[in-house]
């Protein structure tokens, strides 16, 4: 099974928020997040949601502090993704009928999960996809269902930052990963916890935005 039918997929994608993926500690020398426990957000989901492919280990992400940090962040999330079996796939044209969402000569994506996209879009060879696809797609293609973040509430509500943290690690961990980003660490605001909500910048169903830019010129382009 490759996922829900097209109609329901559009609805699903439209409702998603936040990356789910926790479980084992990260591979290799990458930073560690609270390992061991399964991502609670994934419990009770069908197999195609709970499971998606693991990342290829040992990529070289060394292009500047920002790219490095982004790669580390990805690694944390990816490494925490459960073992592969049946993955949600990026049949982009399947939903975006007639829209030119992929360049004409793009390799076929129908059989890919998010890990497949990242094989090229890792920030070193091609665009890291930031801003090109919304994070709800990224999450969906990594096997995270709507309910994984939103729960069963109807209508769905914006999840708390704690929901993001179950898979992405604590805010302190994130701050450590981006400690060297210039000119300032985007995850270490001096303005306290209210300014540390993930969803201030990392929007899911539309393009993310640089919340700091309401007052500062840091020039962030958050994924």
């Amino acid at each position: 099974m490759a996922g829900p039918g097209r109609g329901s997929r559009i609805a699903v994608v439209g409702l998603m928020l936040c990356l789910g993926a926790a479980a084992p500690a990260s591979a290799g020398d990458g930073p560690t997040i609270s390992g061991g426990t399964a991502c609670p957000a994934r419990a009770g989901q069908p197999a195609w949601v709970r499971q998606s492919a693991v990342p290829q280990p040992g990529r070289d992400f060394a292009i500047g502090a920002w790219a490095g940090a982004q790669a580390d962040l990805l690694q944390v999330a990816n490494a925490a993704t459960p073992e592969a079996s049946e993955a949600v796939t990026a049949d982009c044209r399947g939903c975006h009928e007639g829209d030119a969402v992929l360049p004409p000569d793009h390799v076929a994506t129908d059989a890919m999960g998010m890990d497949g996209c990242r094989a090229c879009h890792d920030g070193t060879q091609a665009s890291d996809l930031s801003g090109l696809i919304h994070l709800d797609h990224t999450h969906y293609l990594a096997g995270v269902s709507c309910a994984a973040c939103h729960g069963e509430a109807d209508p769905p509500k914006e999840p708390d930052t704690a929901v993001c943290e179950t898979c992405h690690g604590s805010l302190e961990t994130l701050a450590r990963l981006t400690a060297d980003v210039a000119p300032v660490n985007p995850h270490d605001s001096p303005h306290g916890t209210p300014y540390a909500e993930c969803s201030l910048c990392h929007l899911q169903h539309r393009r993310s935005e640089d919340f700091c830019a309401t007052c500062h010129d840091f020039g962030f382009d958050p994924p």
Partner: protein
Amino acid sequence: MSERNQATHGLTRRAVMSSGLAVAAAAPFAGAAAAASRAIPETWDEDVDVVVIGTGFAGLAAAHEAAKAGASVALLEKMRVPGGNSIISGGVIAAPGSPMQAERGIEDSADALYDDMLAAGLDLNHRALARLVAEKALETVMWSIEELGAEYDGLSHLGGHAVPRSYALAAGSGAGLVVPQLARLEEMGIEPRTRTLLKRLVRDGDGRVKGVEVHEGFSHPDLDSGTPRAIRAARGVVLATGGFGGDPAFRALQDPRLGGELDTTNHPGATSEALREALNIGCVLIQPSWIQLGPWTSPDERGFGMAPTFVQGATASYGLWVATETGERFVNELADRKTRADAIIRTGNRAIAFVDAAGWRKGMGGNAGERRQRMKETGVLMEYDSLDEMAAAHDIPAERLKETVERFNAAVAAGEDEAWGRYLPQDIAPIDEPPFYAVRLAPKIHHTMGGVAIDTEAHALDVSTGEPIPGLFAAGEVTGGVHGASRLGSCAYADCLIFGRIAGRNAAAMEPWS
């Protein structure tokens, strides 16, 4: 919504009250309410004791006291995050006669603070309000430590204060108070409702403010966005919506020189719509054209940024400010803000503030290396190996700059700044250790001293009668009078917390209307 709120959901209102004519005739002594009363909503969507609008120091303090007094509270905030200017602010609060001063042998008193406030305020301060702030400042800082668990780790000397008397939050910003304020409120079951815009204050024909109309799901700055909702306030409404420093159009109405493109240190929600609504229902606007420019900001970054900590903390006490055209000092670097901002503007914003390496160390304290790196990366801070190099970079006549430094070093040796009468701290030393650090100066809109008139009980006053508007309280930067023409640094925190607490307590103590 609480059970209590649900129970009263759908309260209806007698039709007669929605006729302005009937209202005016029925309530001859209602002050400006007769002219300004609004149709009471047909139904209220929710019913609480106290509605607090704004989640800065003032609103949070009001909600805290109202909840402690047992009132149910709706705490409203239009932006996506709570905290307003308070959470991004500089983190210093006046505490005259404090333990930290005693440790350093600094003598001080509430009277001395009051005198400084009036001197900076050009005596336009409403004296009873200013006196209350001066007298309650110390106990308010102690309250923040004992009741909120706020942590302070330094004593700052801000411009216009006779002595160092400002407690500096360990967090380095107002978040060091806002975060614990929010935590205490959460313990009491109160969470700020963000993206909730105050649209209308509902003042009845009998003169009393009885509730609010809001837009939920508001998306700044679109004032028509969101879903309307009416909240009944059985006891009172506290207006704590902050200043209008971020509202160029309203600023320009008050001081035509200060509109347009001028940058501001304020958060983007520092706009005037709530203040204007207060005027609609009969509040009095006082002293609105006294708009303060911060003298320690830089044109090389946006907003408040990182310059002020350096310019105030290091250069004003241990360094110098010079006009680049002359290479000379042009103001007492520790004067009040208005004196300094006006002086910078007179140089045509061609002025720099600088210190030597020793001054940097003394003024910047912990984390100084990291901060220096960041400031250099953003281009706001410039580092020079010699005074000659600094002079060349800023087109300053080098010889005159060096003479200026020599003259100041002689003043340091003599223990008195004869030229400008600046306060010299005990640990001051000659300016001679390279490298030298400099920031360019350009004042930015910082504080709006004017606002609605209140009395010492935080009652908002009626424009027709001068008497309190029943059911309406106001606190914080949305009010006017405390600071007169120019607010002293670290006095806004005291003002907001003191009047916020009074407003919350008094709102909760009102008899509910029925």
